[in-house]
């Protein structure tokens, strides 16, 4: 973006700085490493990484929704389960490669999200949050009651269908793994691009001061709707993959609040809400702790809850937020700088922060 002065270009807005150059190089290296995992890692490692990637994707989408658009939803599990069920039903009826169900899951979720948003947006702030919970409960109840989708026992994907993914067990494992990796990379990349664009600026403006944003011509409702619908679609596609891998889905597992909301929220809060790097750092911390503490179940959740509360009270920007502010780091080139030719770059005041 170049600004025009009377005698030609006067300033430029750029996003990159030293730390994001370093950061992006690291990210690129990591991606290379992860693409090569089938060659250096075993099946268990790949499965674990699939879990990490799926959570990074889910948490990044939740962060976009709550940290940027201000829509604190505790009902995203509705779309995870919806995505899973959509994929299974497509797989059963279409009798084709179930991977085709992933984009279908996205479309179904987008179509469902529009009327849901229509209802939910009538509620403000914290009431929106509980309303989203109700929606998720409704989904769960409906799927429990309807026998056509398996009722309480859910559905399993028959082995014949699973085999359509690819030939050979290894090929299937690798393909599913690479799709998880690709999904995470694409989702994070799209979020970064969105935030760099005018939409992203609009989101930040809305988050900082809604009234001012409206008076500057930003269509707040439309922006929020777009974010809600996009998040729903992405969440559903991730959900579809998650359940494809599990090969079976029930209303309880599909719409599990603990798995798809509690964990996601805690990861994002601890890592740093309102920054793209936050959910990623948070997910890594979550899994490292989980491996270290072995599966302590309830105790682990209590510890997570306490950590989230402590973070929210004393370091509300999360671990990454705190470090980034202190040292001026960023991994993804998202801040906006004025570059005046011949002068040192002047950094715009921190834009991606939670008020």
């Amino acid at each position, binding site marked *: 973006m170049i600004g025009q002065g009377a005698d030609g270009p006067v300033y430029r807005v750029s996003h990159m700085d030293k730390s994001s150059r370093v950061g992006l190089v690291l990210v690129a290296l990591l991606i290379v490493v992860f693409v090569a995992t089938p060659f250096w890692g075993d099946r268990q490692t790949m499965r674990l990484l699939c879990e990490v990637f799926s959570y990074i994707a889910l948490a990044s989408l939740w962060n976009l929704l709550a940290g940027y658009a201000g829509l*604190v939803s505790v009902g995203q599990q509705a779309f995870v389960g919806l995505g899973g069920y959509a994929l299974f039903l497509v797989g059963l009826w279409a009798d084709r490669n179930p991977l085709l169900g992933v984009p279908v899951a996205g479309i179904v979720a987008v179509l469902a999200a529009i009327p849901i948003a229509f209802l939910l947006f009538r509620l403000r702030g914290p009431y929106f*949050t*509980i*309303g989203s919970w*109700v929606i998720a409960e409704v989904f769960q109840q409906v799927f429990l*009651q309807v026998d056509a989708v398996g009722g309480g026992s859910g559905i399993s994907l028959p082995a014949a269908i699973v085999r359509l993914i690819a030939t050979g067990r290894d090929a299937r494992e690798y393909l599913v793994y690479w799709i998880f990796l690709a999904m995470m990379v694409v989702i994070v990349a799209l979020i970064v691009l969105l935030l760099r664009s005018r939409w992203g600026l609009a989101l930040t403006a809305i988050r900082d001061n809604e009234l001012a944003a409206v008076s500057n011509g930003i269509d707040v409702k439309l922006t929020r709707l777009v974010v809600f619908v996009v998040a729903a679609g992405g969440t559903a596609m991730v959900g579809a993959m998650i359940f494809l891998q599990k090969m079976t889905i029930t209303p309880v597992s599909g719409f599990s609040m603990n798995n798809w909301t509690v964990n996601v929220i805690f990861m994002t809060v601890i890592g740093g809400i309102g920054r793209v790097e936050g959910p990623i750092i948070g997910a890594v911390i979550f899994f490292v702790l989980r491996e270290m503490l072995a599966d302590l179940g309830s105790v682990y*959740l209590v510890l997570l809850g*306490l950590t989230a509360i402590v973070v929210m009270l004393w370091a509300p920007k999360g671990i990454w937020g705190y470090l980034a502010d202190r040292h001026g780091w960023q991994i993804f080139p998202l801040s906006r700088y004025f570059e005046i030719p011949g002068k040192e770059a002047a950094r715009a005041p921190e834009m991606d922060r939670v008020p």
Partner: protein
Amino acid sequence: MQWVNAVMQGVLLGGLYALFAAGLSLIFGVMGLVNVAHGDLIVLFAYMAYFAAELLGIGPFASLLCVVPVAAVIGYVLQRGVLNRTLGADLPPLLVTFGLSVIIQNVLLIFCTADSRKLQSGTFELASWKVTEGLSVGLLPLTQFLCAVIMIAGVQALFYRTALGRAFRATSDDPSVAQLMGLETKHIFGLALALSLALAAVAGVFMGIRRSFDPSSGPLMLIFGFEAIIIGGMGSLWGTLAGGIVLGVAQTVGAQIDVAWPILAGHVAFLLVLLIRPQGLFPKVFR
């Protein structure tokens, strides 16, 4: 006739739901905070009553005498120690109370296991009053309904006829200027949560007598309370009572249609109100 019975039961159930909602609504009115852990606190107090009953050998109604004061103290300490630090923005109170909700559920799970419990009130639970042929009203639900009405009237009286109520309303209107009157806002907010949790304790004991509960029962209580508030319209506890009644009736009538449907029927009623009349059935006009 069974439909009339169902409606009757729904109305009485509404009283319980209004109690779930009362504490929630009070807090939102005074400090704009929605306590996502409210349902889990209701369950926590039900457990307290259960253990009080076991240890002291008293009935659930008597356990109210110890649980309610403890709940009030917990509310005051929680507000002053934790929640007062979160006020000012939307996100922190939501996320902190969400964290609290998860903590309470899992702590209960660790110490009390997932087994469901119930508070026993003996033969009183089964007693009923035969109104006419084919129409009986359970004495327990009737008592709970009447108690709920009395408590709501009490809270309304507190808010509109006492100095403390004036303090609540003034602090909620304008905390800075309230300070100029000599009101300590931190203390007032503490008292508000104390009252809210006292109501939650009564709700918990009533709920525990009526049905079995386990550590994961909390969210549903929160949702019922919330639905009662939205259906009835925000800003008025009597509206919340009406909302609770509508919700209760929707559930019991739904159960008549199909035994597996009560909760879903309640959700549908809520969604319909949200769709057709989002401000609720009896919203308070001012502010």
